[in-house]
Each structure stands twice: as structure tokens, then as C-alpha cells.
């Protein structure tokens, strides 16, 4: 049985456990600022977008952050590490309410709520951004990877700058 077939035949509880592990690994990677490892959660021809909920609901195409391939993700990592000027900060991401919508052919659709907490050096921790992940996953190299990850955020008024991925 191929890895893809194995995932397709997992019962719903085992599939959920796989996804919980994946999302925990994803947020740990970002929370621990191992940004160089972040693109590996995606397939080569992926889409990653952070979109204000008002744009999403009105059908307006503008994303606050748009990546159309793994190359774009790498360019963002280069910006975080080498080009962008910003104050030091910690960010911690919480994912909950994971809903497995199911397979559509070989694409698995998942939704979840997320909260990103930001801590700046001279300020109390604040809710920086919250919203919903609308994700599509496929099996590649024997594991689930993001084909598409949409972060649709409620926090329309962004507190200053969005530097790290969600």
C-alpha cells in the first residue's frame, strides 16, 4: 500500500491524530522561529495566503500576504532573516476546533481556528491575530503537506506589522 493509500484508508480517529500532530509540529516550528523549516510543510506548487476576513467575505482578491509557490515562502524567510527591519518579538500560535471536512479525490480539507499571541519586549502579551485556517492537504513523500493554506483573519486592524507567518 502506498503512503497516499494508507492515509486515504485511515479511520477518522487516526486521521485526526495525524492532523493534530501535524498542526502541533507546524506551530512549534513557527513559535520556535525555525523559519527555514517552515516551507517543508508545503508542496512545491502551494498557495499560502493571509487574508482579511472583509476581503474574503466580499470576494475581493487582495491578500495581506500572498505566496504562490514554495519559492515565495523561501523569499519570505529570507526577508525575515536578512532584509526586514523590525523590533524583537515572540509569537505563539494556538490551534483549536480542528474540523476534518474529508477527502475530495486525493485532497484532504481541514478547517481550524487559530490565535496568534504576540509579545513585544516592553509590552504585555496581546492577541495579535485570530481567524480561521482553511487548508487543503495532499500526501507527498509519505506525509501530509499543505497544498493550500488560507489564514482568514478577523483582526482587521493589524497592530503595526505582520512579520512572522501564521
Amino acid at each position, binding site marked *: 500500500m502506498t503512503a497516499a493509500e494508507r492515509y486515504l484508508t485511515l479511520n477518522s480517529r487516526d486521521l485526526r491524530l495525524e492532523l493534530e500532530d501535524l498542526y502541533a509540529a507546524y506551530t512549534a516550528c513557527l513559535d520556535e522561529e525555525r523559519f527555514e523549516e517552515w516551507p517543508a510543510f508545503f508542496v512545491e506548487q502551494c498557495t499560502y495566503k493571509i487574508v482579511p476576513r*472583509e476581503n474574503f467575505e466580499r470576494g*475581493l*482578491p*487582495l491578500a495581506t500576504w*500572498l505566496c504562490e509557490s*514554495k519559492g515565495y515562502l523561501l523569499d519570505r524567510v529570507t*526577508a525575515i532573516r536578512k*532584509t*526586514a527591519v523590525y523590533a524583537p518579538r515572540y509569537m505563539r500560535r494556538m490551534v483549536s476546533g480542528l474540523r476534518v471536512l474529508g477527502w475530495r479525490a486525493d485532497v484532504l480539507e481541514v478547517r481550524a481556528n487559530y490565535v496568534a499571541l504576540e509579545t513585544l519586549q516592553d509590552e504585555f502579551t496581546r492577541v495579535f491575530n485570530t481567524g480561521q485556517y482553511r487548508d487543503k492537504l495532499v500526501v507527498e513523500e509519505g506525509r501530509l503537506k499543505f497544498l493550500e493554506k488560507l489564514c482568514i483573519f478577523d483582526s482587521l*486592524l493589524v497592530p503595526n506589522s505582520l512579520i512572522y507567518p501564521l
Partner: protein
Amino acid sequence: MGARHVWPKEGISRIPYWIYSDPEIYAREQERIFCGPNWSYVALEAEIPHAGDFKRTFIGEKPVVVVRDTEGSINIVENRCAHRGVQFCQKHLGNAAEFMCPYHQWTYDLKGNLIGVPFRRGVKKQGGMPADFDPRNHGLRKLSVARRHGVIFASFASNLQSLEEYFGPSMLPLFDRVFDGRQLRVLGYSRQLIPANWKLMFENIKDPYHASLLHVFLVSFGLFRADQPSKVQMDATGRHGALISWRGDQRKTEDNADMKSLIDDFKLQDAKLLEPVREFAEYTVVMTTLWPNLIIQQQSNTLAMRQLVTRGPAAFELAWTYFGYAEDDEEMTRRRLRQANLMGPAGFVSIDDSEVMKFSQAGVGPYPGAAGVMEMGGRDWKDEQHMVTESVIRAFYAYYRQVMEI
């Protein structure tokens, strides 16, 4: 103004830091600048194309509503019920047949006229408004409106000069370059709250000196650099300004050796992000600042209005409306959306600005008695054929001082 409000004797080559944090100055700005005889940007017509479409926005910190009525006219009214002051409109955008204040259900038509007062004649012959109460005297306060090629401006003052005179002959062609009468298409919104005085945003976009130094991304890809052909241009008053440049190559040369931030071998993993096509005549980048609340961004193919909404002396909201043209094909729209990655709250370039503006406020706020030095390119202000100048900021403050009488 108090004794502490004395501008340094050097004039506009100094910026006293009390202008960024003093509540008295802020209150005077609201009165003289945002409520003064100026045209403030409020909306694009493409945001409210149909009868009844409205947009809730702000001039300075004052809430207003921009609405298209059934005759197609644009009306701008204070977002404040004439009865008891409730901000009756709470949605960013919407469509309405009329506006009703939720508190006592006073109702207004799309021109702001009061058309309904519940229990006006009392209930069972008791109560009600006085017999001489005339609804015609109690409509929403209406603002002056000016439109040009799909862009809407408003003013709390009346009998203003025309928008064309207001922009002046040096800025009007730059405005018309992007707004040439073609139908616009709104691509979306971004909003950010920047913890800095609103004037720091204008300074930033009037300051080509920083662009070649702070923005490693911009510099490394040759999008805006001191060694490129460029110029700064102002109107006769100094209140409006534009930074203009043409795209150059990205080699390291003697001329740009001071730009430590230049990473010579910087290559994008995915070049799609920066594949601009020549769209406008002559210039690659034109960043226009229009007094008192608008930045028009034309950076290659990414077009946006950046509207400043003040939120006290130490914060402002930057409301971005990205747009293209109705006639754009799918590829052009995609190109605009990709290049939008440069700007906004997560912009490859503008992250640096919003962060640095916060650092500025953190430095100038606690030191109101100190002053900044602005002598790059001289101590006066005039148009220049290069970027190594703070001339446009000095022009802004020359005009600011006149208006504020400080």
C-alpha cells in the same frame, strides 16, 4: 500656544519633537488641518457604485459616511445623529435605502435630510416635539464634496478652491496619470494601526533619503535607489509632494557604496513577485502625498490609496485600498496582487516603515524638548532632480507652520 511651543530658530531645518506628542497641538491639528479648508480623501467611486451604497470612514478622527443617492450624487455626512450624537453607521461598507439611528430611530434619507422622528406628535396627545420643531433644521451635517476621475474628496469647510486648484499644476498631472478617467476596480483592503504620530507617515513618504538605506529589499532589487534617475516635486505651497523614480539596474557601483544594505547577489526564489510590466509613461515609481490625509502609491504595477486616520497624538490608522482598472486582464490583476506583497502591514518593504515609525515615536515622544535635524539637501525647499534630500519634508513643515501658526 504655550511658551513651550516655540519652533527652533533654525526654522524648517529643525523639527521640534513636541509636535508629535502634545495633546494641544493634536487638538489644533484637528481643527485647523482636518476640519480646515482642505480636501481630504474619503473614497473611490468604485467602492460605492450603486444607489444606496455607502462607506464609513474618517477625516482626521471624525467619523463620516460617504453615500451615493438615487440620483447618483455623492453625499458625505457626519456619522453622528443630529439628535443625541450617536455614531449611527457601524459597517465599513454597505447598502441602505435610508439611515436610521438605532437609539431613537431618527431616520435620514441618503442626502442626510431628517425624514422621520418617532412620536414627533406625541402618543395619545401627550409629549412629542414642540409644534415649531422643523425637521429641515435637524438633518445630518453635510460636508463639501469634490470628485475627480473616480476619486472622492470631502471637506468640513465650504467655499473651497476647486480640487484642481488645490492640487496645483505640478501635482494634477501626477494625479491624472493614475486616475485618467478609466473605471477603477477595488482589489481589497488592508488596515493597520501604527503607534506613531500621523505626521511621521507623511515624513516617511516625503523622505527619499531613507528609502535607499532602510529598505534592503527595495534597494537590492533596484526598485528605488539613490543612484537611479529620480526627482522630488512639490506644489507651490509645499503641502503636497511626490517622490518619482525610474527603475535602474542593481549592480554595486562607486555611487552606491554607502548603501551598506545592498545585497549584491540577492535573488528571489520565485521571480514572479517582481515581474513588473511598463504601464505608465516615464516613471516606474510615483509616491504622491496629498495634504492632509492621502498617499497615492504607484510602485510599478501595484496601486493603492493609503488613507491616514488619526487616533490621538501617538497613533494613526493606515487604511489601504488597493485597486486596478476594470479593463485589466486576469494576468494584470494577478501581477498587481503579487506586487501588493511589497506593501501593506506585511509588505516586504513597508514593514520596515511601520516598525521604524514606532521606533521614532518611542524616541521623540519622551523628549519633547529636543529637535530633529533636517539638512540633507539644504535648509530650504525646492524641487530636486535627485533623492539625496529632505526638501519635501521641509516643504511640508513650512506649510504646516503657516496653518498652525507655530
